[in-house]
């Protein structure tokens, strides 16, 4: 008989090992899945994990890692602060969209003027847009005790409608021959987030790295980070220590909203280039997986973001090269979170074999 026994302290060893174990289990289960689909599992796994980095076309795929990873990391860092404190912002996708709209809106308002301050203003506008969108669930929770999970999630669908309306109306390219979508910001030098397009470098990548460092210092060295962790671990002890829960809700939701909004702005002014109906690609939801895969730890999130970006790119290659259905790739990514949560139990419990015990 298998029996779970609670450890007196969380195991350091397993804390670091579980993400690796989860990746390994995902490879095995994914391989079985691909085998059932009639593909060679070894080739499929290699295509997903190896080819983007080391195949002959890797020079094309490697910059994509930065492009795909940066928004995931930037959003996940913001989400992780709230998740640590038990504040569940599920609506980063909506904040991402609104940040892209407000940021791009500011840029387009200056068109065709060229000036150094346009892009910084767009970044601020994007952050403010995401922040404002996240303040809706935050204020409703503080004032009326509503559930931030539901409110933030539903606001994603509102944001999507707003995005459609913007790309068909207010922000539509007047020279776009009637097609939906805004002007392409890649053609507007002052409103462009690329630093080096061929290397995949844009300001969002820089922002993601800064956010990782900022979050690391905050959580390990600062009183606010301590209060965030304390609130998540023992809410009553946090109140006893003097933490104001409402203040923490506003800070955590506000920060995650602002970072998601910035991610949206960097995306629209760089890789995507324009506001369009289907501009959002689900980064806001995938970032939730990234945050947990990285164990809500800034460094872990950086690694998890890179891994997630890898499976995205590798999944695309596998689809085109091996003809794997896209649903299989999504299933594969879902497995990663599933296995991570399952083996996570090993940090707090140990498995004992064959003990018979009443009680």
């Amino acid at each position: 008989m298998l029996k779970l026994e609670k450890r007196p302290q969380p195991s350091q060893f397993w804390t670091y090992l579980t993400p690796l174990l989860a990746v390994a289990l995902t490879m095995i289960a994914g391989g079985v899945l691909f085998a059932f689909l009639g593909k060679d599992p070894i080739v499929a796994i290699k295509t997903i994990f190896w080819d983007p980095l080391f195949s002959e076309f890797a020079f094309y795929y490697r910059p994509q890692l930065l492009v795909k990873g940066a928004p995931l990391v930037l959003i996940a860092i913001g989400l992780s602060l709230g998740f640590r404190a038990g504040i569940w912002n599920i609506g980063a996708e909506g904040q991402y969209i609104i940040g892209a709209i407000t940021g791009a809106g500011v840029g387009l308002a200056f068109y065709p003027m060229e000036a150094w301050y346009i892009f910084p203003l767009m970044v601020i506008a994007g952050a403010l847009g995401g922040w404002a969108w996240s303040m809706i669930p935050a204020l409703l929770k503080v004032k009326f005790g509503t559930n931030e999970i539901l409110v933030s999630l539903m606001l994603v669908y509102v944001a999507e409608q707003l995005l459609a309306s913007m790309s068909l109306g207010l922000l539509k390219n007047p020279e776009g021959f009637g097609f939906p979508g805004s002007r392409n910001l890649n053609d507007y030098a002052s409103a462009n987030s690329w630093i080096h397009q061929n290397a995949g470098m844009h300001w969002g990548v820089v922002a993601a790295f800064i956010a990782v460092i900022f979050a690391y210092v905050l959580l390990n060295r600062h009183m606010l980070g301590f209060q965030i962790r304390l609130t998540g671990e023992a809410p009553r002890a946090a109140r006893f220590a003097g933490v104001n829960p409402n203040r923490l809700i506003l800070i955590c939701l506000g920060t995650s909203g602002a970072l998601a909004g910035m991610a949206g702005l960097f995306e629209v002014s760089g890789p995507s280039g324009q506001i369009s109906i289907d501009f959002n690609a689900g980064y806001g939801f995938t970032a939730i997986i990234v945050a947990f895969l990285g164990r809500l730890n800034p460094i872990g999130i950086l690694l998890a973001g890179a891994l997630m970006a890898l499976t995205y790119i590798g999944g695309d290659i596998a689809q085109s090269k091996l003809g794997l259905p896209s649903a299989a790739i999504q299933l594969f990514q879902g497995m990663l979170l599933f296995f991570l949560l399952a083996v996570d139990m090993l940090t707090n419990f140990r498995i004992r074999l064959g003990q018979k015990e009443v009680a």
Partner: protein
Amino acid sequence: MTGTLLSINGLTKAYPGVVANDSVSFDIGQGEVHALLGENGAGKSTLVKMIYGLVKPDQGTMQLRGADYAPVQPSAARAAGVAMVFQHFSLFEALNVAENIALGMENPPSMRDLATRIREVSEMYGLPLDPARIVGDLSAGERQRVEIIRCLLQDPKLLIMDEPTSVLTPQEVEILFQTLRKLSSEGTAILYISHKLEEIRALCDNATILRLGKVVGKCTPRDTTARDMAEMMVGSSLHVPERAGGEIGPVLLKINDLSVPSPSEFGTSLKNISLAVRAGEVLGLGGVAGNGQDELLGALSGEIPTAPGAIKLDGKAIGAFGPVARRRLGLLTAPEERLGHAAAPDMSLIENALLTGSVREGLESRGFLKWGKAKSFAEAIIERFDVRTPGPGNAARSLSGGNLQKFVIGREVMQRPEVLVVNQPTWGVDAAAAASIRQALLDLAAGGAAVIVISQDLDELMEISDHFGALNEGRLSDIRPAKDLSVDEIGLMMGGSHGMEVAHV
């Protein structure tokens, strides 16, 4: 007493790293009231769990009325006529009395029949109880009656009671004893677990004393002094805290007509509480659990906001201040619940030292934490209060209850408070550690601080208090000098018998 009811031979139970019971043997006669005496961690709970079928012994046998008895689960024990009233009630607050009792039965009768039987049994034993009342509205004494009646409905031959009086006023204790004596005279044996020696002397026929899992003595409580029993229990002579007799100074903390609704649904609201504590004084606040102790501590710690003028520290109105501002001014508190309230279970002792110590110990500067200083502060607490742990980096939940309590109290005492408020400072702590905690509180008062001790342990309060008051349903009694109070007077201050009546023998 006619013959042996339960005979226990060489019961042994070991857990990893500790032998909870080491070949324990004793007999309980029919109709006997048998005391099981010992400190926390002596192995009393493990022993009764084996008798009740919750834990399986490693070695040893039991005989019930001459036949082999080895219950594999509590229902088997109940079928054999063994019933148990736990220290912590297992009742659903949102359900009524009859529903709660039905939930514990294998084949519950219809609600109407059950209600009739509850009334019959409760009247027969002088434990009046309305089957239709919601448990959330009952006092602790009444809730215990629900548990006792649940057991009595099974017509037990042996009733195990685990620390039954810790939630009762002296008057309620007397009524409980009348009921237990009546049961005993009808032939029901009672295994009575306690560390309150005077109660055992008043009630029990025989006593078995456990220390570190072994039987270290048997005695007839009526013929043995409380002090002798205590020394058998502890295994050495007891250190009685002594006070230096410092000067009583000016009023430091004043509560003026404090009324606060309870934040929780089944909590107790505070009603018109007024008190004052002076420098150098220890004020003891007694009362049965659930009469507003948690709420009073919350109002003083700053977790529950109050009217600004309701609480004054050194003449300054601080009712609207949060916990951090109050700590800065010197008002420190230690709540009853150690894990999750006074300390965060999964965080290290260093982080837990930071939890309340950051302001007064200067563990942060401009928001940034000084981990080195926090570590030395945690180490200082561990050193001075003899907290048994491998190091300050260990998680709070890895400490035993008593050790964590020493840490929690030590953390506040070490911050040199002007006013210290503690709730149940020695709950679950062994006698030697309890004495050192009390000594630390007395030393603090001797050094010019004002100390408020909220406790359900009347012996403790009488030992260390200068003044005594009692909480009852959220109200505070008059505060009187502690040294000339009798037990009866204290009982009346605690709310008397809460409407209980003596068994109709």
